């Protein structure tokens, strides 16, 4: 009897609490916190939460779940968020294949989704949606920008390499699209490959004057270490995915001299960025990666829209997001018609830092105001 009373009282209390908090905003974050490549998810989460804390708002609740890099798990977590927790906004997914499994289902049911990393071409083109915003990049952007940069720098015989899976073939296609010239050869490696002796010998045997590669995560570490001891002496280029601050520290001196394209750099000179990098270092005792910057921007975009309107008013909230009226760590930031960024892509070079560890240094702009090529297929 006593228990029942207590239970009833509990219900009464919780319903009154809920009534008080009806205007609160719930954000569901599904990201990769365990399994391969989990440092990406950790940085997105930390950057995102830093912005939420700095806003000082206590009416925002962020629910965080780990997808362990598994599409099926991500999908069921998304269903839980929508049905049980009734979240207003979702974000967090790192990998394109997981985004493809989750995002269309989320936006179709009227929940907003803001991507802090993955930018598959389908979501920018034929499957775009009014409730989907990409705050990071379209997958081709960084590869294409590197193609344009290498052309500009006068490299005439690049050899290009990527794993044989959709994002890998897209990367090489994106590169060739803006390189606008002949490449010496295209090498496709296996997904998860760890030994690159065969590829390095082929690169040596070709008469290439430069190498562009896309090998995310551990594949890039293995390749660069083996590259250093091979004695092949041509400059190497890639997208930031193989050269984030955490990966290049694992690679060591082999990464020195590599140039990579990124939408952001920690030494990018603007006031918002200085504050972000300083406060991130203070909070987490490490230098943020581009993923942390993307998480930070995503949270600040949401906060800027929440300043004027609650997500329950969907049309007004969508307009507020589209305006992108926030201070980005990237400096300029605006959305194209398909809700994907139009932004500058920068070039960084890996150098030896003051502590002797490799670090990225900003050396210039690869392409200004780059926009993806899929927006014309987008009907919203």
């Amino acid at each position, binding site marked *: 009897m006593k228990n029942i009373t207590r239970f009833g009282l509990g219900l009464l209390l919780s319903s009154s609490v809920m009534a008080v908090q009806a205007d609160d905003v719930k954000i569901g974050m599904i990201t990769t916190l*365990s*399994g*391969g490549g*989990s*440092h990406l998810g*950790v940085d997105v989460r930390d950057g995102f939460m830093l912005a939420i804390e700095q806003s000082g708002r206590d009416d925002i609740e962020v629910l965080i779940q780990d997808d362990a890099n598994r599409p099926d798990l991500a999908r069921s977590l998304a269903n839980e968020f929508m049905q049980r927790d009734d979240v207003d906004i979702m974000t967090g997914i790192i990998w394109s294949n997981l985004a493809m499994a989750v995002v269309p289902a989320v936006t179709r049911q009227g929940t907003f989704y803001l991507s802090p990393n993955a930018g598959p071409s389908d979501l920018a083109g034929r499957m775009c949606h009014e409730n989907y915003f990409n705050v990071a990049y379209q997958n081709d952007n960084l590869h294409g920008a590197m193609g344009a940069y290498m052309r500009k720098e006068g490299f005439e015989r690049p050899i290009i390499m990527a794993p*044989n899976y959709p994002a890998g*073939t897209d990367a*090489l296609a994106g590169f060739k699209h803006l390189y606008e010239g002949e490449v010496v*050869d*295209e*090498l*496709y*490696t*296996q997904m*998860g490959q*760890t*030994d690159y*002796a*065969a*590829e390095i*010998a*082929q690169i*040596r*045997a070709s008469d290439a004057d430069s190498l562009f590669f896309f090998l995310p995560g*551990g594949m890039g*570490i*293995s390749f660069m*270490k*083996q590259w*250093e*001891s*091979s*004695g092949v002496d041509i400059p190497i280029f890639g997208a930031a995915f193989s050269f984030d601050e*955490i*990966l290049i*520290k*694992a*690679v*060591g*001196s*082999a990464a020195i001299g590599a140039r990579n394209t990124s939408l952001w750099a920690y030494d990018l000179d603007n006031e918002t960025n200085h504050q972000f990098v300083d406060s991130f270092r203070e909070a987490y005792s490490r230098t943020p990666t581009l993923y942390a910057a993307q998480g930070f921007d995503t949270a600040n975009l949401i906060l800027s829209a929440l300043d004027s309107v609650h997500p329950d008013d969907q049309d007004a909230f969508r307009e507020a997001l589209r305006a992108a009226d926030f201070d980005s760590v990237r400096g300029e930031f605006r959305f194209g018609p398909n809700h994907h960024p139009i932004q500058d892509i920068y070039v960084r070079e890996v150098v030896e830092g003051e502590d002797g560890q490799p670090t990225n240094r900003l050396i210039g702009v690869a392409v200004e105001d780059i926009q993806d090529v899929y927006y014309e297929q987008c009907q919203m």
Partner: protein
Amino acid sequence: MSVTLLIEQLLNGVQLGTMLFLMASGLTLVFGVMGLINLAHGSFYMVGAYATAAVTASTGSFLTGLAAGMAAAAVAGALVELIVIRRLYHRPHLDQVLATFALILIFSEGTRWIFGSSPLRLSPPSWLTGFVTLPGNTRYPIYRLVLIGVGIVIAIALYVLISRTRLGMRIRAGESDREMIGALGVNISKLYTVVFALGAGLAGLAGALVGALQSVQVGMGEPVLILAFVVIVIGGIGSIKGALLGALLVGVVDTLGRVYLPIFFRAFMPPSEASGVGAALAAMLIYILMAIILAFKPKGLFSAHD
């Protein structure tokens, strides 16, 4: 398609093969002597690499790290045998697969818990970096040549151990008739622990040596484990000689396939398609090789249980 490229790729294939042999020899001994399917063998590979990276970072000596890595993997192997594996010998293979799969998860998450999820840094010592110039003016990394050398030394040492020592005699006896050597008074449980630790130590050595070339990260052992299973199936389960030959065969076929299949397809296809098709077929090549060998020799090249 020059001769020097072919020689360099053959060396690469042999180097991959010798490292696979270190993995496969332990796996095949454990399966041959104890009849145990051990999916957690890749975890010892990871333990060896992590211990080497950690000790090398704190002492600054790669050789000390290497010894520590091998010892850590062997100790981990002995503990796992005493605590878990010992209870599985009389259970069906499905139970063994389930239990050792659980061990993979425990080792992976435990390693992540201790070392974090970012890859660790491990590089060959400075006196092993650099390259030598081979005939035909091709440069080859010293470290890879050293790996081939270590593989050959281990192969010879294993041969001596198995064919010339009392322990080796017991291992051979265990392979051919497990019940009988128990009945003859050999302390079979001690023998099992020693064999298991030996296999784990070799896997740890392989992980440490290869980790310096690749990346030391959680889950690094599982892709190698799959290749090692292919090797022992091709070579014949339980046979060290088979593991050596199978490993070299898989290493060379895999490496040459990756290089020459795309070139072959380029003869009659546009380059970007040829690269894609060639790479896809190269990924399948060792499994095709395994299927062909098993079609003619269903028990592998050198079965210990004929």
